[in-house]
């Protein structure tokens, strides 16, 4: 048995911990730029993103309009930055909702098992069986389009995945001897869930959150593209792509710029998410 420990040590030793890599500076830098601009958009002297100047419509990028103007002559730079605000609010908040609800469901299922698990898994499966975009479309169509409703709809859609992550991790941790040890001292289920298991779930949940942000940003884009996302005139990346599609032949920048910004953001999030997942891998962090 001490030999298996030896083998573990060898495996650990042969996997050098992934260190800081210069290539990560690019995605991290981009994300920081997007976040900072989204937060400070009101104070950096941007033109009103909704102000129309029909004479100056579909202008290519120039010194006056750094990213050009759209179909209604609105400043693209301003709209991309204010759109980042929308995308980030939805992208950050919706998975938090999913993690809170799905995490609670998944933890209960993984910890209590038996009937609780059957019910939870059934609920998750039902939620997963609906085509997700159709569900979100129905949702916003009935409740009305607003930032809150879009976030709510996408948050509900992220519940099953979050619940699965929480359940799988809880199953793994709940069988560990330290959980048994907590029971032998008479700890309640609530105390075991919150004090023994939850701290071990936080790293994988955080990694999930990072990945979910990028998925939700794309989903929000798709909703807006279909005209059921954030209502006009509030800018969002998906809405901008939808608007720009009409003039793709004469002014391709109106669709391509928001698409490129979304692409870069999602890609950066995925890179950083992978890095975080590697860092929180218990076999590595145990070193």
């Amino acid at each position, binding site marked *: *048995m*001490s*030999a*298996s*420990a*030896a*083998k573990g*040590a*060898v495996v*650990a*030793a*042969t*996997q*050098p*911990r992934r*260190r800081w890599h210069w290539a990560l500076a690019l995605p991290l830098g981009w994300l920081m730029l997007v976040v900072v601009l989204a937060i400070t958009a009101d104070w950096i002297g941007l033109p009103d993103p909704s102000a129309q100047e029909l004479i100056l419509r579909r202008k290519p990028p120039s010194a006056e309009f750094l990213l050009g103007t759209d179909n209604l002559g609105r400043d693209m730079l301003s709209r991309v930055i204010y759109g980042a605000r929308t995308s980030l609010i939805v992208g950050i908040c919706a998975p938090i909702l999913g993690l809170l609800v799905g995490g609670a469901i998944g933890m209960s299922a993984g910890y209590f098992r038996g009937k609780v698990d059957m019910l939870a898994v059934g609920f998750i499966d039902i939620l997963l069986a609906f085509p997700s975009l159709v569900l979100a479309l129905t949702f916003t169509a009935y409740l009305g389009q607003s930032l809150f409703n879009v976030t709510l709809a996408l948050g509900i859609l992220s519940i099953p995945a979050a619940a699965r992550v929480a359940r799988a991790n809880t199953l793994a941790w709940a069988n560990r001897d330290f959980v048994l040890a907590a029971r032998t001292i008479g700890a309640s289920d609530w105390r075991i869930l919150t004090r023994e298991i939850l701290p071990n779930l936080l790293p994988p949940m955080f990694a999930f959150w990072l990945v979910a942000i990028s998925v939700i940003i794309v989903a929000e884009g798709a909703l807006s593209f279909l005209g059921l996302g954030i209502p006009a005139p509030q800018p969002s990346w998906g809405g901008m792509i939808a608007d720009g599609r009409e003039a793709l032949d004469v002014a391709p920048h109106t669709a391509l710029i928001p698409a490129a910004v979304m692409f870069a953001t999602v890609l950066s999030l995925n890179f950083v998410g992978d890095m975080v997942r590697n860092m929180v891998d218990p076999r590595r962090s145990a*070193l």
Partner: protein
Amino acid sequence: MNGPSNTPLLSVRNAQVNFSTARGPLRAVDGVSFDLHAGRTLGIVGESGSGKSVLVRSLIGLVGESSGAGVAGQVLFEGRDLRGLSPREFRSVLGTEIGIVFQDPMTSLNPVMKIGRQIGEGLRLNRGLDSKAAARRAVELLNEVGIPEPERRAQQYPHEMSGGMRQRVAIAIAIACAPKLLIADEPTTALDVTVQRQILDLLQGEQRQRGMAMILITHDLGVAAGRSDDIMVMYAGRAVETAATREIFRSPRMPYTEALLRSLPRLSDATHTRLSAIPGRPPDLARRSGGCAFGPRCLYRTERCDAEQPPLTMVGGRGYACFHPRGTEPGGAA
């Protein structure tokens, strides 16, 4: 080693294995040399982190550049330098001349391949047998390693067998191509004692019958005592004592070996006899000091032990890495 004086089957000189870890470089194996003669069994004994498994895995290329390790030293197998071979030649030596049995047969066997096929694979690849001949030979081998109803068992998958059976299958795979050297890396650690006894009997029986040399890696001094001709004790990546098995147990020279033997509970002792525990714990290989690695735990440590690393000194056919070796009688007969 006090084997016959002809060329050894396996000769290892100054083997080193280095890993780079987050906490800095780590020397898992530090200048180990030994010879193994045909037909002999060498027991390599050590605790976790002693480097016993890494050493042997590095000899057969399982630990190397692909796993992020720096490997140095010379490995001669029948006079050929294994480190100088092309990957193709090396694979052929591994497939035909060296058989390996690992600790956990559940992970060393392929879960989705019938065991008859797994045993025959080496024969097809290395001995050029056709599938029919290989399958026939696989059944013979299953019979030889003591598996009842070998024809039926050959058609089964590993999960349909018990742990002891799977280890028998692993042994059948290892000996299929009639190797000259069998490496058994903690072959019974995952098994129950009554099964362990049977597997060790099988290994020893095959080794004697086929005249193979065997390297038996174990943390259990009891296993090494009953099954090896010579023993090499490892501690913190170094060979600290080598001698014929009987001499190691009767008159250990290295204080570590002595302390380890004394710390073992024995059935012959009365209940509640206090064990003579070794204080402290094995050193952290990433924070190595200049002196003897066992020094901090040693009863006989002096200033010299802290300042210098004692080299493995050969006296009368046995070796020890200690400035203050135990035992006053002359060293065992070589």
